[in-house]
């Protein structure tokens, strides 16, 4: 059964159509890659799913409920976690307190939130920087803190927005391991937006490709990589 369905979702910003009639399903337990050139509307789709912006038309169904008009915090409580491409750490709080704040979404007691925080710190390999201020972390740490905060809300669906961008090769491998473990150990379904092909091709079960806000193809990583429209969207029509 699909955990999330987008049905003919469209978003207009004034005269610009950022997302145009996009539909896709995410199956429970899968990792769906969302790819497309810069400005193709990937982050906008995330912002529509967790209602940072209202959709112009179309429906978003999560676990059988229509969440199109729910508020951002309600969607988080229903079980959709997300990370931000432009990271949003709570800068003046420690790494642990960032996760604490998120953990309180499911835990009402201080001790409960603390236990969740410890688990998440360990899972995301952030325990050694737990007491540092989040604003002072290097980019790899801040990207991982994004994942940690989202995990602390105990999501069933996780939207990862370029969590691997700006990482060096060693950090990249660590990030891939963590993302794989999120699915295999925690059983969380993932939609991942990523520019780094090494990550997206390795991790995704299926890939949904968009350009100029419109779906161009969907299929296995191998199929999508071989699709001429995808190659054209990324490299231009002269590339053959």
């Amino acid at each position: 059964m699909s955990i999330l369905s987008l049905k003919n979702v469209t978003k207009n910003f004034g005269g610009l159509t950022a997302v145009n009639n996009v539909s896709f399903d995410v199956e429970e337990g899968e990792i769906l890659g969302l790819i497309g050139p810069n400005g193709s509307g990937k982050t906008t789709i995330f912002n529509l799913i967790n209602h940072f912006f209202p959709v112009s038309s179309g429906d978003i169904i999560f676990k059988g409920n229509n969440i199109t008009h729910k508020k951002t915090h309600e969607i988080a409580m229903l079980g959709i976690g997300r990370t931000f491409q432009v990271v949003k750490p709570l800068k003046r709080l420690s790494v642990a307190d960032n996760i604490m704040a998120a953990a309180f979404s499911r835990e009402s007691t201080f001790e409960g939130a603390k236990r969740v925080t410890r688990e998440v710190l360990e899972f995301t390999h952030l325990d050694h920087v737990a007491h540092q201020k989040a604003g002072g972390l290097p980019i790899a740490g801040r990207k991982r803190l994004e994942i940690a905060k989202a995990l602390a809300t105990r999501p069933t669906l996780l939207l990862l927005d370029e969590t691997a961008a700006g990482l060096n090769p060693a950090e990249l491998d660590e990030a891939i391991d963590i993302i794989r473990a999120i699915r295999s150990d925690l059983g969380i379904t993932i939609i991942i937006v990523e520019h780094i092909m090494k990550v997206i091709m390795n991790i995704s079960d299926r890939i949904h490709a968009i350009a100029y806000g419109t779906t161009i193809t969907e299929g296995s990583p191998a199929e999508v990589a071989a699709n001429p429209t995808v190659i054209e969207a990324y490299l231009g029509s002269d590339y053959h």
Partner: protein
Amino acid sequence: MHNDKFISKSEIGIFIFALALPFIFDFSPYIQGLLIFVVLWVVLGTSWNLLAGYTGQVSFGHAAFFGIGAYAAGVPFFLFKVSPWWGLLFGGITAVILGYLLGIVVFRLRGPYFALGTLAAAEILRIAFGQEEWLTNGHNGILYMTTWVSKYPYYFIILAIAAGTILTVKVVMRRREGYYFLSIREDEDAASAIGINASKYKNISMGLSSFWAGMAGAFYFIYMGFIDPETVFALHNISIISILVGIIGGVGTIWGPAIGAIIMVLLQETFRSAFFGFAPQWVSGMHAFVFGLLVIFVILYLPGGVVGDWDLIRKKLHLKRKSEMKK
């Protein structure tokens, strides 16, 4: 994460010291009055700090809550001769109701617009309470013969209110609410993405903050025996000083406003009395000027305030002493 004890030994020590102060020293009524004002400002500064320092909603209109609290004690007395002491019950509640109604409007605004919205609210109340003479006796104010001549009972009452205010902050900041306040301050969008209902928790913060500001207002009427709109809704003397006490002491720290209040009252009185009569008379008009300079200095060099940047201050003093020793 706060692994430290909820209330430290030194905090209990400070409270006992404050309680014992009148028994240790034989203060003149003038000093007694100053003590009461210090503690009153601890309440106002701490209340402002909860909303602005911890939740990031920088209010420029805290006089609205202080004033409405004062009039919650004053109006029933003026109209029906109800004892102003009931104000200690109604003052806080009335301020919470005002805070909730105000929040519907001002929480739609962010940053400087929120500040302007709250400032406008306090000014509207100041003017309205001056006009509605049937309710408030207008600019003539409301006068009441205070219950006791001695100032000490008032000192203990305001001390209890201050303890309540500080305890509120300490309790809240260890709970879910506190973590949510900080998250909203740091990034409202990020907060909502981790499931925080920002408008609900801003209202809770406003409620707690306005309650204690209202209590301070009610106390003010009971203690002073006189209020008028220009005093209790004053922009410069209440709203702005609430902010300055917080900034100088340390925004978002438990004890910052307390330290800020002591510095502010000491400075104000030193100048107002022209260095207790030792300096020429014109110095007495300088306290606002000097306070302004102090704020500029703190914002430039100690953005965390005296408490927030205490480590920095200690390090600087320490280095200085070391370099002097080398000479």
